[in-house]
């Protein structure tokens, strides 16, 4: 199991489109993805779950990955956050 903290860098936060790319990226891997923000914990492969996070620019999330390809999944997700979900 890996735990990482990531920051939302794109100006519009985790709105519908980035939420969709996050879910899509997570779905490529077997590892389970749990995302924690404040007191909330959701399944990172569920779009409705990610939508509830209301994560704005600058907010931080904790990604918890668990599965055989967790290392690889973690790299892909961290990269996605770093790139600001390729928005703008």
């Amino acid at each position: 199991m890996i735990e990482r903290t990531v920051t939302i860098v794109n100006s519009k936060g985790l709105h519908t489109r980035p939420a969709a790319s996050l879910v899509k990226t997570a779905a490529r891997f077997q590892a389970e993805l749990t995302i924690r923000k404040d007191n909330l914990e959701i399944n990172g492969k569920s779009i409705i779950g990610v939508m509830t996070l209301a994560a704005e620019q600058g907010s931080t999330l904790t990604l918890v990955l668990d599965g055989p390809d967790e290392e690889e999944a973690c790299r892909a997700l961290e990269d996605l956050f770093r790139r600001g979900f390729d928005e703008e």
Partner: protein
Amino acid sequence: MDGTPATGSEIVLRGVAAAPGISHGPAYIYSKVIPRVEQKQITPEEVPSEIARLRNANARSDKELQKIHAFAEQKLGSDNARIFEAQLMILADAILMGAIEGRIARELKNAEFIVADEITKYKQIMLASHDEYMHERAHDVDDVMNRIIRNIQDQKLFSRLEGASIIVSETLTPSDTVIFSRNQVLGYATDLGGITSHAAILARSLKIPAVVGLRTCTKTIATGDTIAIDGYAGVVVVNPGDDTLQALEGKKERFRDFEERLVTIAPLTAETPDRKRIELSANIEFDTELEFARTQGSAGIGLFRTESQLIGRATYPSEEEQFAVYERVAGGVFPHSVIFRAFDVGGDKLSPDAEHEANPFLGWRGIRVLLDRPELFLDQIRGILRASTRKNVRIMFPMVSTLAELRRAREMVARAKQELDARNVPYDPAIKIGVMIEVPAAAVLAEQIAAESDFLSIGTNDLIQYLLAVDRDNAAVAPLYQQFNPAVLRTIKNIIDAGHRRGVWVGMCGEMAGDPFATVLLVGMGIDELSVLPSVLPEIKKVILSVRFKDAKRVADRVLAMSTEQEIRDHLSSITRDKVPEIPLDE
């Protein structure tokens, strides 16, 4: 407005004309049907069939939404169709659906109960947020949940809508409008206006009359009541008598004849027989309205309400996103020009942390917000500047009440230009900057403001409201909202004269500009530009084409000497009927 319930006598409700046309028929009160969900125990043997019901319902819901999305994309453009994408994504959420199926099998409960229970959890998290954007998403979640449940229960959409009806509702979403349009819809009447503009645009493209902003029509009207809808005047009549129906039928005929002759009016330049030219342009909110404005014969866009871009989103659009919209509009309207009005909204719309205001009309809105949020203002100015390379773009500031605000706003434009220079991005360096005159203080200072701007545009709706201290949404004082009040007319005359003394043109983009009874007077007072709803544009043009400037000036002089609104209204009505007998005017 009459708030008494319909008892067989005629009731006239006034709202805002949103889509032209006249019709009458039975009302259908539409309120979002919330499907009833009961908890039922199922046997383990029933689990597969219960899951099959769920999957079928999801497939049907997906089909419905895909259709709505495609239709909206075609009618509203892909930007505005995005509102349906979130719902489609939730429907395709494998984790969510897996969880629901798992619970059906484990808990042995019926599918709709588990759907409601599971999805409501997410909805409640969203509703608990303080973010307006999250509340909007909660609506999407709610919508999609009800759609699935309705499909599980195998209910058809609007099965109760039998035969042709006029849809009466609190508000209409684009998806409602789209779905209804597949029925025989004679018209739309809604309590609320404003944000439902999407629905109004759809109604216009579908050629279905619509009146919005009726405030209490869902309470006054009952399903089955006969109602008549006049989408030209923005009026709904409950239990219309024979006389009313006959009058409306006559008006419909006149408009039909008139609209047939429009083809000949549309390409004409709006000028009086003695060659005084009036710039007659259109007010629009969405680039998709450009085509309609053009066919109605507009010479450009006199007011593009940029706040339409904020509908359904939590954050304001980036420079890039805005540029895309402005560029489409500027390109589409060329060789005519377009005036982009900077975001004119209350602070709450642009900043989720804004305090709720007790008196928003006297609060943080328009230029006040923009100057307090320079990064946001600069994004918008750069977006507009970048769309100005054809030299047909102008920018206008809303709610200016002091010269200091105007100067600061102009500094922001200068700064945005420098930033673009640094990025080597082209724009029109001589872009014209105008001020919307809608606060009495700005009207008083019109000459000084004109000296420091390139044009003035009179926003009559707010100006009248502020000048007369009348909230026209307050039924107790609404009759005091009088556009022909002598104080209003003198103020308008002063603004026009002040602008002309400083050599800048003066236009008008409020509702008064689109009232054919006001046209002779406004032309006579020397107005240079009128920007009106595309639907009324031909009427206004017809008046301009029919009255000599010389005569209009005489009318204006006479009216400005009058002392009561009633006297002025009567005079203008008889003058207009006399000069333009063929126009299908309203009382």
